[in-house]
């Protein structure tokens, strides 16, 4: 087997995510949430949803397959934007280097909440770091 040989495997480009978006502590009802992931080109793919009456949103996992070889670094660039009351906020940015589910959170997250007035900041995780306005705990 050559060091450059390829074996295709499933990769998680963006793990499932669900949480609550608030503005000044109150649910951001009817906010438009756009999740973008790009890895094969700079354009990427975007999915959108709208928060419900308690500000809750969710996205299912985004998966693809990747031909792994030793000279290519897998990276999925993740972004989440929220439009609320006519203003756009970026609440998530990450370069996901790991192929596994929930790696960007450092584990399976729970109680994820994102405050739009919170300036996005670096959050260090078990596997790396993200820039986000969100907070979460990890399931046991």
């Amino acid at each position, binding site marked *: 087997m050559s060091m450059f040989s390829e074996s295709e495997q499933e990769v998680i480009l963006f793990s499932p995510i669900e949480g609550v978006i608030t503005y000044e502590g109150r649910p951001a009802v009817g906010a438009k949430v756009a999740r973008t992931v790009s890895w094969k080109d700079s354009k990427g793919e975007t999915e959108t949803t709208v928060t419900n009456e308690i500000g809750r949103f969710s996205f299912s996992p985004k998966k693809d397959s990747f031909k792994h070889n030793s000279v290519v670094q897998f990276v999925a*660039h993740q972004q989440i934007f929220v439009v609320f009351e006519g203003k756009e906020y970026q609440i998530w*940015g990450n*370069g996901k*280097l790991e192929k596994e589910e929930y790696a960007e959170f450092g584990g399976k997250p729970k109680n994820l909440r994102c405050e739009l007035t919170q300036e996005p900041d*670096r959050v260090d995780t078990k596997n*790396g*770091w*993200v820039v986000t306005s969100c907070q979460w705990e990890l399931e046991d």
Partner: protein
Amino acid sequence: MMSELMPRISAEIAEDVYRVQDAFMLKGFMKRSEFSIKAEDKVQLKAEVGSRLINTLDGFGICAVG
């Protein structure tokens, strides 16, 4: 004079570069303690990477005095 980067730190930074795609992520990258001094002196380097079939602009590197 700034001390030299340890090999482990250099490796972490080399990996972190892949996470940076735009100014939003650059802000997180520059939060590393190694960049805490003169953090305002920062320039994002970009280059085309990949091949003819797959190429893109990417966060390319970081220069540090050492």
